[in-house]
């Protein structure tokens, strides 16, 4: 399996504060990896380390199988948009792209016009950036990150502060880039609902730590109908569930067990727990929303 990006215990400390804490992630070619976390969870710091904006305190990472410090040219193969796009507001959209292209040693003017067309800004190429809407600036920022024709795109909070229309436009653009250009994308957001529409794999980052990773299918499964049970002894309950042959379950918030199979057998489960002297405090069949799932994950980690 070819990994475009691999991080190994990547850590960043600012004084006593650990912004990113031993994060290990592997991203395969063609994936859209969604990094989800609250504001201040460590997403931006993680992206900044990958983009070379700050040095890791500990841990390593490799891009295309190579450590970045050994092959700085690899950076040309990575497009980066960290938080708000870095644009010269008094210059035109085209001139901003041109500046980026010159810095990268590229001289393909037609490609720059093509990029502007691709992000829907062809009509506005001569307009000063300060006159563009927030969504347009964000799209221009993505175009800037595409100047080097990257294989890997790092997009940090690209939908932050956008109106619903702007969010849809960015989402469609990202989907198009992934399909048509076969670009591997790592995208961060604190809105799971939005990421769930485009990402193929997810990682949840909380307090600097990667607390969970799952595929899109797993996400759908986890957010699907399940039995939610609260018992007097969750640890012993898990042993009982496994003795019953139930394997698709998880413990949330240390005391709640979510079971994703044999949904019609809740009575049998209660009976079996009782036989093992475990009291069932509550039991219900639930259908969790994505945001609830995310909150349960990060809330659990907080405790």
């Amino acid at each position, binding site marked *: 399996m070819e990994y475009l990006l691999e991080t190994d215990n990547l850590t960043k400390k600012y004084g006593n504060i650990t912004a990113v804490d031993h994060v290990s992630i592997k991203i395969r070619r063609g994936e859209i990896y969604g990094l989800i976390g609250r504001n201040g969870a460590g997403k931006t710091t993680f992206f900044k380390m990958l*983009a070379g904006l700050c040095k890791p305190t500990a841990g390593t990472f490799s891009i295309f199988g190579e450590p970045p410090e050994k092959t*700085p040219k690899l950076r*040309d193969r990575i497009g980066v948009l960290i938080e708000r796009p870095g*644009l010269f507001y008094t210059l035109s959209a085209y001139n901003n792209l041109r*500046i*980026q292209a*010159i*810095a990268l040693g590229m001289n393909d003017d037609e490609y720059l016009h093509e990029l502007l067309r691709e992000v829907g800004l062809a009509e506005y190429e001569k307009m000063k950036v300060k006159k563009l809407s927030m969504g347009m600036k964000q799209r221009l920022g993505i175009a800037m*990150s595409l100047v080097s024709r990257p294989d890997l795109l790092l997009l940090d909070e690209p939908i932050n502060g956008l109106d619903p229309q702007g969010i849809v436009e960015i989402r469609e653009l990202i989907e198009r880039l992934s399909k048509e250009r076969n670009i591997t994308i790592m995208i961060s957001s604190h809105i799971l609902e939005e990421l769930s529409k485009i990402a193929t794999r997810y990682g949840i980052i909380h307090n600097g730590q990667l607390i969970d990773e799952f595929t899109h299918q797993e996400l759908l499964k986890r957010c699907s109908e399940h039995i939610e049970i609260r018992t007097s002894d969750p640890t012993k309950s898990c042993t009982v569930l496994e003795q019953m042959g139930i394997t698709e379950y998880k413990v949330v918030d240390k005391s709640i067990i979510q079971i994703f199979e044999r949904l019609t057998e809740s009575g049998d489960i209660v009976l079996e727990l009782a036989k093992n002297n475990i009291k069932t405090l509550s039991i219900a069949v639930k259908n969790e929303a994505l945001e609830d799932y995310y909150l349960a994950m990060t809330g659990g980690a907080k405790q």
Partner: protein
Amino acid sequence: MRNLINMNLYRMRKAVSTWVLAIVAVAIAVLDFGIMKIYVDDPFGWGLAEVTGLTGGMDMMKTITGFLRGTDLLIVLSIFVVIFTNAEQKCGFDKNIIGITKHKWKQTLSRWLSAMIGVTAIMALSYGTFTGLSVIFMNSFSAGDMLAYGKLMLIVYLFYAAFSALFFFFTTLFKSSAGGLVPSLLITTGVLSLITKLLDLGAEKLFHDPKYLPSDFFLEGAYSAVSPDASNGTIIRVVATAAVYLVVALGLSMFLQQKRDVR
């Protein structure tokens, strides 16, 4: 690094502030020439030519000496260097390009070299305008001792480079236009020289006619000692002072960039 210099020059050309400051630099040259012309022609018979020493036939050295004494152009250049240096950081563009070189100090060096190209262009424009006006409008104007003139201009250029490195360092250190402009303007407007004069007085009181004064080791103090009549010893001292400021300010800027994270 060549790509980065090209990129910096492109954005310099496209920035309105560059052209505005270039026009201001030309205006300063025109204004200073106008004042000098009044001194030389002395239309009101006030004996201004004798007071300012602008008597007899005018040559390159005589005209330019008066121009380089003024700090107006230096103020313009300080504003230019600060605006240019801080632009990438202010708008966050540095995040787009910082990862493309292995060593971040190369980006600092390329930015300073680009700023120096701008400084050279503005300086040439201003001095060129002043010299051009002198050639056209001064009566009995001659080239004079071009070797001495060239030597003087080289020293002046070294000082402009050192001042630019110092302004560049302030902007890099404080990471803001205000942080760069305040100390730069304190130097160029002569406020700092008031303090160094006080230090000189203190040193004279303490050491009774010392060989060197504190102001000799400040950049603006050394710059004020630059003149066509300066002794070789003075020239060596001021050139060494400018060179040290240039190397240290630039070195510190590169060190800061290399060590700092981009936030």
